[in-house]
């Protein structure tokens, strides 16, 4: 009766057995065909915002996958670089932390592979990996946002938190684009959950080093963003009410709804819901590290 044990066994024996492989094989097939033209113009994320694509109704699943691939490549290379600097001795990992970063890097690599494979199978162009500069100096052409990202473990974790929380919000912003395709939507929600696990763990690592930060995004966390650049990572994240679908428009909580127990109901309301960001905001944030 232990479903997790059952799933674990299935996953060990045949990882695809519980994923309805046949339905997913051609995940992007029909969309790849209609979207091929779009792919050619959707690549240069590093040049700034994605033009037009963020407007509701014009964004395709292919656009979403292209954005997702870029975000995953960004995260993968970020962790891989940190691990490499650790091997070289220029970034010192506290005891026990290297293995877990390795594990997160492995997940990000899997996500990169996943999106590349889906794009290939759909016949769409697979965008080349952009050039990344994790100091945020755009290869030395502007002042660095995080000059010590790979020499200070605390700064490394700070950037990791910003990237993971951005990833969670970016995926959340894409779910409605994907609503027409069950397989694509489910896969993205599954990756979304893993990114949120990463974000939480990284936050816990920062807390262990003395930062005031929870595993969930809280208005009581230490502020680690800079106005005009990284502040978009948490812009709007502390919303304390949710608009429900349908008419007349209703909001939760309404004035007659019992909500959060405890002395800080609005802080808890903000924490209890993670908010999305648009493709444009996500691309701009990724663009801080792309040249």
């Amino acid at each position: 009766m232990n479903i997790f044990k059952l799933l674990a066994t299935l996953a060990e024996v045949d990882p695809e057995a519980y994923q309805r492989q046949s339905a997913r094989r051609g995940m992007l097939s029909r969309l790849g065909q209609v979207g091929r033209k779009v792919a050619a113009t959707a690549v240069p994320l590093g040049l700034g915002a994605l033009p037009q694509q963020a407007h509701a109704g014009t964004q395709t699943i292919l656009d979403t996958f292209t954005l997702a691939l870029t975000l995953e490549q960004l995260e993968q290379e970020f962790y891989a670089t940190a691990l490499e600097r650790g091997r070289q001795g220029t970034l010192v990992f506290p005891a026990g932390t290297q293995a877990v970063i390795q594990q997160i890097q492995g997940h990000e690599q899997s996500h990169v592979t996943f999106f590349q494979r889906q794009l290939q199978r759909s016949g769409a162009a697979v965008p080349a990996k952009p050039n990344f500069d994790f100091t945020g100096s755009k290869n030395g052409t502007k002042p660095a946002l995080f000059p010590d990202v790979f020499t200070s473990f605390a700064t490394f974790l700070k950037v990791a938190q910003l990237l993971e929380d951005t990833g969670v919000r970016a995926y959340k912003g894409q779910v409605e684009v994907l609503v027409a395709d069950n397989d694509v939507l489910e896969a993205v929600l599954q990756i979304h959950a893993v990114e949120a696990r990463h974000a939480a763990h990284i936050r816990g690592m920062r807390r262990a080093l003395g930062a005031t930060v929870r595993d969930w995004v809280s208005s009581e966390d230490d502020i680690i963003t800079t106005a005009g650049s990284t502040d978009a990572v948490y812009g709007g994240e502390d919303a304390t009410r949710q608009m429900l679908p349908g008419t007349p428009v209703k909001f939760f909580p309404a004035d007659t709804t019992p909500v959060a127990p405890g002395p800080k109901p609005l802080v808890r309301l903000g924490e209890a819901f993670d908010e999305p960001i648009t493709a444009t905001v996500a691309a701009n944030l990724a663009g801080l590290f792309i040249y």
Partner: protein
Amino acid sequence: MQRRSFFRVAGATVAASTLVLAGCGTDDPTPTTPAAGANVLTLAAGEVGLLNYAYILEQLEAAFYQKVVDAPPADLRAGEKEALTELRDHEVIHREFLKFALADKAIGTIEFNFSSVTFTTREGVFTAAKKLEDLGVAAYAGVGKLLSGSYLALLAKIASVEARHAAYVRDALQPNSFGTPDAGIIATTGDYAGLNVALTPAQAMAAAAPFLNFTVDVSQLPTT
């Protein structure tokens, strides 16, 4: 008592001064689900059934953490009682959100069976929390595609918070176990390596069965 108190929030852009204390607890008029004597809860078709499905899971998590907060284990470490209280708060908010969204279509309050849980040790609490949070994460990952769209974005906002909870309680139970080593949580090999498990409502209710005193019939729910 503090834990029996709920704040009512007036309006959306409320200031703290508009918060009014109101009772909510043993006098809750909501009927118990399922009706006395019945041993099957049948979820309705369509979105109502799906939201009630999520409402069951949120009631379960909220009731669990409430019990923990009511009588915390003596061996909790620094900060853990506060974190467990915040987890309780989040789950109560999720529960109340779904109840509000469902309005008169909401199922009643469920009495859960926590006899399998050891509430007196932190290991017992975090072991059960891990089971419940991983279940919630996988259930939300699986329910999204069954929704027609209007509630998809809202449930996705909850889904990632549940994943953060799962990572927290896993790390508390065993450091660095936020997503592993259980291969059943995040696939480790194959085309879907690196993806969190997604459960169908039938799978999730089977996993929740030890906590339920009745069977949940999900046969009316959408399957695509």
